[in-house]
């Protein structure tokens, strides 16, 4: 990161902490346009501060959508969805940066949770993530960027969905190789679409299935191998090795459920998180 950018983000962190009376504790993520910090409030309670540098060419419509979506997320109170505890704050006029607060979650995200999980752990992961997605989908919020870094396993063993809904509003912080931003290895065929076919609740269902697949096998169903065009080619058809072939020890009901979540046709998957959570619950 260039010195100017580092300085700008440091300024932004200072601005946010001053505005909300927070004290920085430690940095969690320091990306180009996005930073995540653990902060403490005046009572000493830990919170997570998320900062987005929109640059000089911020899209007013995207900002408006982000405002609406943060307001919606504030209204989501579900044990499997991280709680947004502040409004979306804007820096500058017109805004060139935004920030907001979320609850602090203990535990670790799925990037550090290994693989080869037992069936009951996989079901718990799928059930919790699907339930969290269901709560979002009922508010018409689509996550769009479900990836291992966006699901936290708490010390209690529960799983919590993080960063919901922000992918679409932070295009510059996402990785865009098709029509939509997302994380390589965890995109869906719909991420390649620019218009009507872009991600829906059924795309989040695919994402949930991909995370369970990852936890079961150690790699996502459509892994990224370093070549964008080759990845997109495979992603178009969601071509993958069936879970039952890689983990024949798993119950067939679970393997079948995961296959349905990974169907290349969104209309062939579970329609949303609520339907998926119900399916996991029925196993």
């Amino acid at each position, binding site marked *: 990161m260039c010195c100017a950018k580092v300085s700008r983000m440091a300024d932004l962190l200072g601005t946010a902490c001053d505005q909300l009376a927070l004290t920085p504790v430690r940095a969690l993520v320091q990306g180009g346009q996005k930073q995540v910090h653990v902060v403490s409030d005046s009572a000493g309670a830990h919170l997570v501060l998320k900062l987005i540098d929109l640059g000089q060419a911020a899209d007013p419509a995207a900002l408006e959508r982000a405002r609406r979506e943060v307001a919606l997320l504030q209204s989501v109170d579900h044990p499997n969805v991280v709680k947004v505890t502040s409004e979306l704050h804007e820096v500058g006029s017109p805004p060139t940066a935004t920030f907001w607060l979320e609850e602090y979650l203990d535990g670790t995200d799925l990037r550090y949770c290994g693989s080869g999980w037992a069936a009951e752990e996989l079901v718990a992961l799928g059930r919790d993530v699907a339930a969290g997605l269901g709560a979002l989908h009922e508010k018409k919020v689509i996550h769009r960027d479900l990836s291992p870094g966006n699901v936290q396993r708490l010390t209690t063993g529960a799983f919590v969905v993080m960063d919901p809904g922000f992918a679409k509003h932070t295009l510059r912080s996402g990785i865009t190789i098709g029509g939509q931003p997302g994380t390589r290895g965890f995109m869906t065929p*719909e991420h390649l*679409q620019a*218009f009507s076919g872009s991600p829906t609740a059924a795309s989040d269902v695919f994402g949930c299935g991909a995370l369970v697949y990852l936890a079961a096998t150690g790699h996502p169903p459509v892994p990224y191998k370093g070549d964008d065009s080759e990845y997109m080619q495979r992603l178009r*058809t969601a071509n993958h090795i069936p879970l039952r072939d890689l983990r024949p020890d798993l119950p067939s009901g679970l393997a079948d459920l995961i296959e349905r979540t990974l169907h290349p046709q*969104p*209309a062939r998957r579970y329609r949303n998180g609520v339907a998926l959570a119900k399916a996991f619950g029925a196993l």
Partner: protein
Amino acid sequence: MGVLIQDTARNNLVTWSVHAVAGGYGVGTMLSPFASPFEANGFKRSALATSEAIREAGGEFWLDPMTYALDMPRAGDFRHYAEWDFWSTTRGDLTSRAAMREHVQRVFRAQTALDSPALAPTVLVSYPDTPRSQTALELAQVAMEADTGAWLSVAGDQEFWSAGAELDAHVGALDQLEPAGWMFIVTRGDNSMPPSASTNEIFGLMRATYALSQDRPVRVAYGDLAAVPALAAGAEVVGTGWDIRQRICAYQDFEERPADTQDGGGWYQRPTLAGLLGGLTSREYEVLVSEEAALAARLTPAAIGPRPEQAFRHHATVLTNVATALSSLSGRARAEAMRQMYLDAEGEWPAVQAITGTRLGPSRWIAPFKAGLEVFMTSEGWL
């Protein structure tokens, strides 16, 4: 279920539809604002009188707003359409959500007045990942906001239905709206019969039908024999009629024509033979009957009377029988049953061609549809 009778430029829609409903070879009627007036005009009944007559006979009455026809190249036959109160300002203006809402409300109001199910208007899409497809999605969203019990229409040309992942993604987005049912329309650049269908178009139509028919009814307007693969994929009804215009949704049938003609087109009296899943000209059929009466009787089957309504009755019965035969099956068994029908028909054509010298054989009546079906079955791991 069977056959829905599309609207016609002639004035026999009610009488023949009532006969079809009573005879079990039609489930009802789909009125078109391009073919019928809102008020009676001396040649045709009013839309309300048509609705009442069909429903009194026990049939379904639908009003298709056919907004998608406005997008057709050279669309210009607005003699009847102009009577319908579908637009507050410029005809076809869907450039804002407010304009969409206004149009949807007017369409639903007309359907309510006519006791038609709410069938949402849609635009014609040529490729399912474009600003136009986005308009189609937004119009569908507006319609579902206005009436959560509405059916959604999906209208696309052959390129639209031939698209792969883009079609699937577009259909997936529409599926999120959870309408009461689906009405598909395949529009065509020519009105030749049988339609010049492609393998990919049939595959796409089947994929969409199979996906959406899992928990909602799917129908294919103007489908006729070209939509039989959709029946195999789970559709319940196809649209048809006695004129080509009722069997194919082709651009030239919506072009401007002289105002003082009703121009119903020619009767489409080619006998449709169940055993061929296709048709012959009347002359060819006469030769077949004359030369090989037993073969003709087996393939037809049943008698085809000389009058247009009798020819239509037989045609609609053939389609109804296919739909009925498939309706008790699902998934793989349903597709396999349809494939066997195609294989059987394909096997019959050489003898018929040898006897009649017909120009249109299985390469037009069978090949593209069977090929699309087989690609679909292969994609499902059924073949």
